C-alpha cells in the first residue's frame, strides 16, 4: 500500500478500534489512541526520511509517492490521487506531531470519552487526507470531513458559550467552503477548455495551464477567500477567537495547529498554483488584507483578558503573516510562509495545550484573576514562557526562523509598496512581544493572586455568585508533560537546525515561484 494512504487507513483502523471498545473502558480507548497516533508519527517520520532520501537520490517528480485510483468517471472525473512534495511532507509531519500531543492533552477527557475520540479521529482523517491529496475533489472532500467534527467537538465538549461558538465557526467555515466549491468547480470546468479531458488532478491542471485569464480572475478570489476564511484572513477571522475560546484543549490545538494551516496550504496549492495570472493581478488586494491581519491581530491581542482570546488573535496575526508571505510570490517568502505554518502550528498547539492545562485546574482563563503561577506549577509555566518566546520570535525556536525568512523574502519584492508593507509587518514582532510579556508578567510572574497555600498544597480560590470554591492546583502530570515536551522539542529542533527543513520546502517551491514571477 502507498505510504500516504497508510495515514488514512491507520486512522480508519483506529476509528473502528475505538468504536468497538466499550465506552466505559476509557484507558483502553486512550491507549489505543496513543498507539495509533504513535504509528502515525512513525509513519510521518519515515515519510520525511524517505522523502529526503528519494530527493537525495535524484527523484525529480513534483509529487513523490504518487498514486491514483479512479473513483468515478463520467459526468465528472474524480480520482483518489495522492502524492506529496516538500510542503505537504512538512504539513504531514506537523499534523502527526499535533495529533499525538493532542491525544495526550485530551487524556483527561472523561465525559463521553469514546465519542470524543471518535470525532477526534474523524478530524484527523480529514486533515491527513487533505494534505496527501493531489486531486481537487478528494481534497475538498477531506476538507469537509475535517470541518464537520469541529462542530460537535466544540458544541459538546467545549466550554463557555459553546453552542454559539460552534455554530459560528462552522457556519463561517462552511461559508468559506461554499466559495471554495464554486472555485474548485470553476477550475475544473475551465482549466482544460481546449487541451483535453477535464480533470481534478492538481498536477495535470497546473501542467496544462490552460485556464483563460478572464475565468481565473473570477475564480481566484473565490478560491482564495474560501481558503482564506480558514486561514483567518481579515475580515473573515472572527470565528477564530470565539471558536478557540470555547473549544476543548486538544481541539483548539488541532484546530489552530493544523486546521488553520489547511487554509494557507490550500491558498498556495490550489488558488495560487492553478491560477497564477490572476494571482499576480489580484495579489495586492489580499496582501493589503493580510497585512492588516498581521498588525490588527497583534494589536487586538494586546487588550484581551481571556488567555485563549489572546492566543486566537495572535494566531490571526501569525496566520496573516503566512498568507502575506505567500502572496509575495518569491521562493524565499513562500518558504518562510510554509515554515511559519509549521512553526505556528507547533507553538500555538503548545499554547493551547498549556492554557488548557492551566484552565483545567484554575477554572478560569481570565488573566485578571490569575497571578504567580510560576511558584505553583513551575513546569507548565516554564513551558509557557518557552511558547511565548517562540511566538515572539526568539532565535533558537521555530518562530524566528519562519519570521525572518518571511521578512527577508518578502522584502526582496521588487515593488516599493510591498516593501513598505513588509516594514509595517515588522512592527508585529514588537507588538507580539508586548502581549506575550503582558501575559507572562501577569499570570506567571508576580506574587500569588487568589491562590492560598495550605501546607504544601496550593489552592485556587474563586468566588462565583457568592460561593467560594477551592480548586487544588498541581504541576503537570505525565501525559501533560509528554504533550508539552513533544511540542517544545519539535519547536526547538526547527529553531536550532532549520536548514534541512527549509531546503526541503524551498526546493518544492522553486517551480511554483518561477511560474509566479
Amino acid at each position: 500500500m502507498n505510504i500516504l494512504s497508510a495515514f488514512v487507513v491507520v486512522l480508519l483502523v483506529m476509528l473502528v478500534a475505538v468504536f468497538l471498545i466499550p465506552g466505559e473502558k476509557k484507558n483502553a480507548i486512550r491507549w489505543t489512541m496513543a498507539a495509533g497516533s504513535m504509528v502515525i508519527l512513525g509513519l510521518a517520520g519515515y515519510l520525511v526520511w524517505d522523502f529526503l532520501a528519494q530527493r537525495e537520490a535524484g527523484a525529480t517528480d513534483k509529487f513523490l509517492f504518487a498514486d491514483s485510483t479512479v473513483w468515478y468517471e463520467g459526468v465528472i472525473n474524480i480520482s483518489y490521487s495522492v502524492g506529496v512534495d516538500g510542503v505537504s511532507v512538512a504539513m504531514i509531519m506537523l499534523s502527526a506531531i499535533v495529533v499525538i500531543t493532542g491525544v495526550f492533552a485530551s487524556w483527561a477527557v472523561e465525559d463521553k470519552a469514546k465519542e470524543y475520540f471518535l470525532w477526534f479521529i474523524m478530524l484527523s482523517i480529514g486533515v491527513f487526507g487533505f494534505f496527501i491529496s493531489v486531486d481537487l475533489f478528494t481534497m475538498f472532500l477531506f476538507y469537509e470531513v475535517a470541518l464537520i467534527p469541529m462542530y460537535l467537538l466544540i458544541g459538546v465538549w467545549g466550554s463557555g458559550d459553546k453552542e454559539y461558538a460552534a455554530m459560528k465557526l462552522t457556519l463561517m467555515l462552511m461559508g468559506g467552503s461554499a466559495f471554495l466549491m464554486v472555485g474548485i468547480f470553476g477550475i475544473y470546468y475551465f482549466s482544460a477548455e481546449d487541451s483535453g479531458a477535464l480533470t481534478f488532478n492538481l498536477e495535470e491542471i497546473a501542467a496544462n495551464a490552460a485556464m483563460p485569464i478572464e475565468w481565473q480572475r473570477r475564480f481566484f478570489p473565490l478560491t482564495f477567500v474560501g481558503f482564506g476564511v480558514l486561514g483567518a484572513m481579515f475580515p473573515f477571522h472572527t470565528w477564530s477567537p470565539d471558536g478557540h475560546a470555547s473549544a476543548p484543549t486538544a481541539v483548539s490545538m488541532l484546530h489552530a495547529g493544523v486546521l488553520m494551516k489547511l487554509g494557507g496550504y490550500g491558498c498556495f496549492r490550489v488558488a495560487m498554483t492553478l491560477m497564477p495570472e490572476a494571482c499576480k493581478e489580484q495579489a495586492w488586494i489580499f496582501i493589503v488584507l493580510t497585512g492588516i491581519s498581521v498588525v490588527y491581530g497583534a494589536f487586538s491581542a494586546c487588550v484581551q483578558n481571556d488567555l485563549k482570546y489572546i492566543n486566537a488573535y495572535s494566531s490571526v496575526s501569525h496566520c496573516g503573516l503566512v498568507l502575506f508571505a505567500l502572496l509575495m510570490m518569491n521562493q524565499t517568502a513562500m518558504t518562510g510562509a510554509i515554515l511559519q505554518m509549521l512553526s505556528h502550528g507547533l507553538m500555538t498547539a503548545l499554547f493551547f495545550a498549556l492554557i488548557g492545562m492551566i484552565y483545567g485546574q484554575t477554572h478560569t482563563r481570565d488573566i485578571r484573576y490569575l497571578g504567580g503561577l510560576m511558584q505553583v506549577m513551575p513546569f507548565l509555566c516554564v513551558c509557557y514562557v518557552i511558547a511565548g518566546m517562540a511566538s515572539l520570535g526568539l532565535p533558537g525556536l521555530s518562530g524566528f526562523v519562519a519570521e525572518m525568512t518571511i521578512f527577508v523574502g518578502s522584502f526582496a519584492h521588487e515593488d516599493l509598496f510591498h516593501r513598505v508593507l513588509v516594514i509595517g509587518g515588522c512592527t508585529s514582532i514588537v507588538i507580539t512581544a508586548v502581549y506575550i510579556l503582558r501575559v507572562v508578567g501577569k499570570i506567571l510572574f508576580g506574587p500569588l493572586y487568589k491562590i492560598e497555600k495550605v501546607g504544601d498544597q496550593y489552592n485556587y480560590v474563586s468566588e462565583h455568585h457568592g460561593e467560594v470554591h477551592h480548586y487544588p492546583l498541581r504541576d503537570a502530570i505525565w501525559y501533560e508533560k509528554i504533550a508539552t515536551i513533544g511540542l517544545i522539542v519539535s519547536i526547538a529542533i526547527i529553531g536550532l537546525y532549520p536548514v534541512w527543513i527549509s531546503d526541503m520546502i524551498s526546493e518544492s517551491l522553486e517551480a511554483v515561484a518561477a511560474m509566479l514571477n
Partner: protein
Amino acid sequence: METITNLSPIILALPFLMFLFLGLCGNKLFKSNPNIAGWIGTAGLSVVAIVSYYIAIQYFWVEGKGADAYQQFVLFNHEWLKMTDNLVISIGFMLDPISAMMLVVISTVSLMVHIYSLGYMHGEEGFQRYYAVLSLFTFAMMGLVVATNIFQMYIFWELVGVSSFLLISFYFIKPSAVAAAKKAFIVTRFADMFFLIGILILSYYTNTFDFLKLTAVSDGHATLVNTKMCGEMFMGLSVTSIAMFLIFLGGAGKSAMFPFHIWLPDAMEGPTPASALIHAATMVVAGVFLVARMFPVYFFEAHDVLTIIGYIGAFTSLFAAIIACTQTDIKRVLAFSTISQIAYMFVALAVSGYTSEHEACLGYTASMWHLFTHAMFKACLFLGAGCIIHAVHSNEMNAMGNLRKFMPIAHITFLVSCLAIAGIPPFSGFFSKDEILVAAFEHDKVLYACQAFVAGLTAFYMFRLYFRIFWYSENPAHAHHTPHEAPMNMNIPLIVLSVFTCFTWLDKVFPFFPEKITADRVGYELETNWIIAIASILVAVVGIAIAWVLYLKKNDKPDMIAGKLKCLYISASHRFYIDEIYLFITRKIIFGGICVAIAWFDRHIIDGFMNLLAWISRELSYDIRDVQSGNLQQYAWGFLVGVLAIAMFAINY
C-alpha cells in the same frame, strides 16, 4: 592557526551546553546542593575563558598580523538557514581585533561574575536557573561578537536580550522586577525592529549578510555598499543613510542611548552580579560593537549618520550624567553612569577617522579602549555595590555611610574604580577617556566641550556615590546590625578587576590598543596630547573636590544647592519625566487608544457584521417558515399555482 580553529567552537558550544545541562537538569540533579551547579558553571566558564585568552593571545601576537594590517579570519562558518543562494545565515566565528578583544572582556567579566555569584547568590531560590541563564548569556554574547554576518549578530542580539529579560526577572515574585524585565525587553525589542528593518534594507540592495563583504574597503569606499546602494534615494534621503541609521537605532536600544535609555535603570532590579555582567560590562556595549563592526560603512557611505550618532551620544552622556547626580539608589547611579560612559564610546566612534595616518582613527581605538576599561571598572563597581547591598540589605544611599571601616576590600576596590571612571591617572579610565577627548577635540569642538563637562560631572557623581557610601555620617542602623566584609569568593573578583584597572598604564610601555585595534586594522604610534590630558585631569579633580566638599561629612549644602536649582533637581531626579512620557504613549495612546479601539472594532463591527448576517438569515427563516403553515389548503393552492406555472412554461416553450 589550526589550534585556534579547532578550539574556537568550544567558546560557543560549551556555554550553550552548560545552559542546556543546567537549565534542563539543574533543578533535579542538584536539588540538595545547588552550589554544585554554580561550581559546574564556573568551571565551564573558566575553560571558556582560558580558550578565549589563548585565542586572543595567539591572534594578537602570533597569527593575526598580516603584511601590514591585522587579518580577519573566519574560523568556521556553518550554514544555518539558507534563504536564497546569496542570503545565507551562517553561524560562524570571525576573529579580528575587536572580536578578539571582546572575547577577553566577556570571558573575564563573566568569569568574575560567576565566581562572585557563588557567594552573592548563595542560598537563593533558583540558583541553578541563575547559572543556566548566565551560561546562556555568555553563549549569546560570545556569538554576537564573533558573528560573521549581520544576521548572526541579530540572532545573538535577540538571545542576549532574552537572557537579560530572564535575569532581570530573576526575582519574578517582585512585581517591580517583572515590570522592569518587560520594559527592558520591549524597549530593546522595539529598537531591534529598526535593526531588523535596517538589515532588510541593507541586504536587499547588497544581497549579502556577510560582514567581510559589507565592510570591504577599497579606494575610500565601502565597495559593495557603494556600488549597490549609491544614489538610491527614498523620500529625499539616501537609502544607505536610512539603513545605517536604523541599524544604529538597534544598537542604541541595546546600549540604552537616548531615547531608548529608559530600560537600563529599571533593569537594576535583577541580581547585582547579573547587572554587572549584562547591564554594565558587556551586553550594553553591543551597540558600540555593532557600530564599530560596521564602521567602514558608516564612515564612507553614511557619514551623516555618524555625525548624528555623535550628537546623540553627546546628548545622552550629558543627560545621563545629570540624572546620575540626583539619584539615591546606588545601582541607579551606576546605571546612569553606564549610559553616560557608553555614550562616550559612541561619541568616540563618531569623531573617528578611518585611516591611521594622522592618528585620525584615534576615536575608534579610544572607543574600543574605553569599552575595555569601562567593562572592567564598571563591573568592579557593580560587584562592589553588590557587596555593599549584601551587607546593608538596601540599595539606598541613606542606609549606608561610613562603611569603609566595615568593608576595607570593597572600599579600596571601589575607590580604585571610582578614580578610574573619574579619569585620574594612572588608572585605566584616564587613558581611554583622554583619547576620546583628544579625538573629539580634533574633530569637533562642541562635542569636546560637552564631553569634557560630562567628565567633570562623572567625577562628581561617582565621588558623591563613593563618599555617601564609605564616608558621610554613621548610619544608626549599623549599630545593631553591623555590616560585615563579604566572603572571599566575592572579594577575589573585586581584586582581580581592580588590578586590571590599576595596571592599564602599562599600555604606555607596551602599546596594545593603538597598535592593534584600529579601524583599518593597521597600527599606529600614539602620542599623548598633554594639554588635553591636563585639562581633563583638572576637570576631574574639580568634580571630585566638589563632591568632597558636599558629601564627605553630613551637611546641609547639598540640600541648599538642590533648593537653588529646584526645577532642574526635581526633573533630574524624576529622570526628566521620560518614563512618564513613555508610559503615557504606551498606556494611554497605544493600549488605551489603538488597541482598545481595534478590539472594539473587531468585536462590534467585524464580528457584529457577521452576527448581523446570522441575524438576517434567522429573521428571514422565520418569515419563510410562515409559508410552511401546515395548512393543507394553502399547500394545495401553492401546488396548483406551481403546476400551472410550470405547465404554462412547458407548453409555451
